[in-house]
């Protein structure tokens, strides 16, 4: 904020105001990040393949990943405490030497990702299905992690 000096129109910066400006700018930037449009740029923030979506219901967690071309036999899933590990390998189709590539965008290789879940899960009841390249893992919450209703009584 520039304060006009009473003696003339000489602008002067006040010390506190400089930081106020920066503080305001910081708050504006943080507010921008809350908009859904900015959230899209933060996708794949973990930087590890595969990209996952985790959703929660009262009784279960659902972890989904898009793994095209990967069959259930190429995947290894394991759970320890509250950490889920997804590992696997994506094979490239073997083509013979006479093929000429016009375009090659699909990659192949290994992947491994560990995900920490927000609460304890019942590992023995976990279930995973892989259909059409979409892996869905259903993780039932442990009894202690399920929300319990507290009834309010009036005296």
């Amino acid at each position, binding site marked *: 904020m520039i304060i006009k000096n009473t003696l003339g129109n000489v602008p002067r910066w006040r010390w506190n105001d400089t930081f106020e400006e920066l503080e305001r700018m910081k708050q504006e930037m943080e507010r921008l990040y809350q908009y859904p449009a900015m959230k899209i740029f933060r996708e794949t923030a973990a930087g590890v393949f595969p990209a996952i979506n985790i959703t929660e219901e009262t009784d279960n967690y659902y972890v*989904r990943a898009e793994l095209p071309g990967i069959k259930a036999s190429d995947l290894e899933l394991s759970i320890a405490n509250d950490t889920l590990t997804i590992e696997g390998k994506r094979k490239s189709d073997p083509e013979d030497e006479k093929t000429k590539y016009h375009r090659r965008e699909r990659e192949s290789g290994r992947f491994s990702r560990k995900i920490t879940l927000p609460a304890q899960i019942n590992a023995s009841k976990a279930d995973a299905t892989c259909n059409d390249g979409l892996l869905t893992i259903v993780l039932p919450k442990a009894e202690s992690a399920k929300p319990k209703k507290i009834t309010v009584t009036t005296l």
Partner: protein
Amino acid sequence: MAENTKSLQVKEKRGPIPTAEQIHQGPTFTPEVDIFETDGSLVVVADMPGVKAENLDVDLRENILTLAGTVISPEGPDEVDIVKEYQTGTYFRQFTLSEMINQPEIDAKMTDGVLRLNLPKVKPVSPRKIKVKTV
């Protein structure tokens, strides 16, 4: 050949620059494809996870090949998002083909979210000699 053991990198799903307004709602993504050519046919392999065979539309007219697949959002109605690293949406991509394709023989297979299109090339007509008869 040595086994390919490099690790897969995660990539954000890219969407196309829309040239016309989309009729459906939701984001549209460009599926990754491999295109290669063998002696007899052109093969297009596209990654479309979550697309079932009945939701897939493959079209070839006027030498433009269109791949369109719709995905039903797998989340249930009561689920709350904790981590969302990718979005689900329709897949759409178009290619201009330079080769002449034998259209009735096009073969499409969809397994594990990967579409494999086999487009057999038209065999070139062998030149026929025309005999000239003298009357």
